[in-house]
């Protein structure tokens, strides 16, 4: 080496640098806020999470008899409203997680690896933003249901809303897994129809009845969240439902972790 190297002390830029923990907390807060602004700008996402579920509710529940027919501690309209709230939340959560795919394609996740943000914090940001929008979706759908004649005890409203929202976590994990797995720029074009099929298969769009199909339906990822979301309304709390939620959540989370490690490994 021929260069004459005279070590110089760089002027350490100390301004504005905060402690690691405070810095991370602020970084995550800023990032989640930006993610929410991005969602508000995406008309298609808004249509799928805020407009579609209430419209579906209106289509499914417009028969007047549903308002007078009782279902558990509420009426049939309430039962359908909870189903649609879960559907909206799961579509929203899936879309939020699947957004990872486009960001990988654009090289954004690679860029993030050049910043102090930990890769796991990025996943947490996507998850948090998806769940916030999911909560808004649940609220809007249930509000429309209430205006449309859904009736159930106050406690059931709150508990159903919470359970529908928590159930969407399974699909946030599903979206993340698919986002890391699929190379497509717009994964939701594939996942949208898949979610609709799952909603039918798991009994969200119509009652399962008691035939052979009802047994098979217990294996569908929407089955568990759908059953649990209706428990406060008088639905039965079954072992099959709990096992279904735990199993699918674990599977999707493990899949995400597997692809995530592959993606962030030093090649």
């Amino acid at each position: 080496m021929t260069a004459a190297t005279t070590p110089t002390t760089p002027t350490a830029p100390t301004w504005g640098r905060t402690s690691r923990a405070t810095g991370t907390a602020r970084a995550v807060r800023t990032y989640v806020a930006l993610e929410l602004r991005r969602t508000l700008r995406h008309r298609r996402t808004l249509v799928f999470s805020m407009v579609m579920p209430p419209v579906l509710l209106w289509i499914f529940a417009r028969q007047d008899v549903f308002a007078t027919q009782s279902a558990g501690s509420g009426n049939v309209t309430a039962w359908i409203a909870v189903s649609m709230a879960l559907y909206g939340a799961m579509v929203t959560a899936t879309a939020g997680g699947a957004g990872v795919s486009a960001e990988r394609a654009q090289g954004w996740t690679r860029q993030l690896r050049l910043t102090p943000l930990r890769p796991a914090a990025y996943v947490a940001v996507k998850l948090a933003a998806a769940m916030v929008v999911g909560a808004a979706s649940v609220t809007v759908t249930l509000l429309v249901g209430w205006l449309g004649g859904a009736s159930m005890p106050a406690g059931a409203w709150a508990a159903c809303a919470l359970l529908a929202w928590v159930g969407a976590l399974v699909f946030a994990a599903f979206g993340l897994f698919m986002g890391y797995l699929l190379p497509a720029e717009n994964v939701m074009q594939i996942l949208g129809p898949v979610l609709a099929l799952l909603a039918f298969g798991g009994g969200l769009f119509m009652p399962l009845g008691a035939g052979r199909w009802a047994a098979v339906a217990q294996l569908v990822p929407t089955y568990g969240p759908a059953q649990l979301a209706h428990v406060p309304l008088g639905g039965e709390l079954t072992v099959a439902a709990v096992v279904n939620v735990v199993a699918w959540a674990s599977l999707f989370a493990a899949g995400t972790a597997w692809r995530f490690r592959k993606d962030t490994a030093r090649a």
Partner: protein
Amino acid sequence: MTSNLTTPAPALLLRGLRKEYASAGGPVRAVDGLDLEVARGEVVAVLGPNGAGKTSTIDMVLGLSAPTSGTVQVFGADPADVIAAGRVAAVLQTGGLLRDITVGETVALTAALFGRAGSPRPYLERAGIADLAGRRVGACSGGQQQRLRFAMALVGEPDLLLLDEPTTGMDVAGRRAFWAAIRADAAAGRTVVFATHDLQEADTYADRVVLVSQGRVVADGPTADVKSLASGRTVGARVDDAGERADVTARLRALDVVDAVDQRGARLLVRTSDSDLVARFLLTQTVASDVEVAGDNLEGAFVALTTTAPTTDGAHR
């Protein structure tokens, strides 16, 4: 250099760095025993043709890929730790931007990720994109996106700035502003390492030039020293007939003052310590025409050093 309390670890230390990629035709060696040490506060240009291993090396310095063998130390530590501490920032060639957010949002987010509390405004101004703050990234031109990447690198206030072909897509004014900002940072003590294949840029803006060819360093030193490695000038001449060209080449090589003769189509590039003698020889004793004497520039050094570098096992990109 021995480490002790009075000499801090160098900004960058690469020792015996190798990187092989698997491919259908067997492993491809992109980086082949690269050694490099960059002191704090230096502005170093890593110069080499496309495929010389520049980008592979940068990826290893940034911890994006792991070396096949050899070591990488940034400020005496593992790249991952230095990135986590926010002491390194990089401007990569392509991608790395979210198209649906604005220029201002991108820089503000990057500042937050680096744990910076200040306003991103001054950084947008230094990168010359303050007027684009409200524009969506996807609506920006290639040159504007490159300036945005630069603002993102500046806002982290890194101690080491790595730039991979940083001025690609920028117009002349943009380049000048870009390098003015870089030089100002370097004057304040920041270490800057940039990869380029633009000789002019390396010559004008770097304190030191590292020539890389086929995955290894073929010359390293202050810009003036590397130029002088070419020991003089390059004389170019045209010989249309292939047979004549071979004959002229052989006679040139027989001259004492000729260091190397390189062929570029019908043109011969003669590296020599005595350009007058070679030019006179070409014009009076051969059929050569269009004789040109190129000044004392990096191009000559580059041609000389990269064309005579040994090829290892034919394995290079």
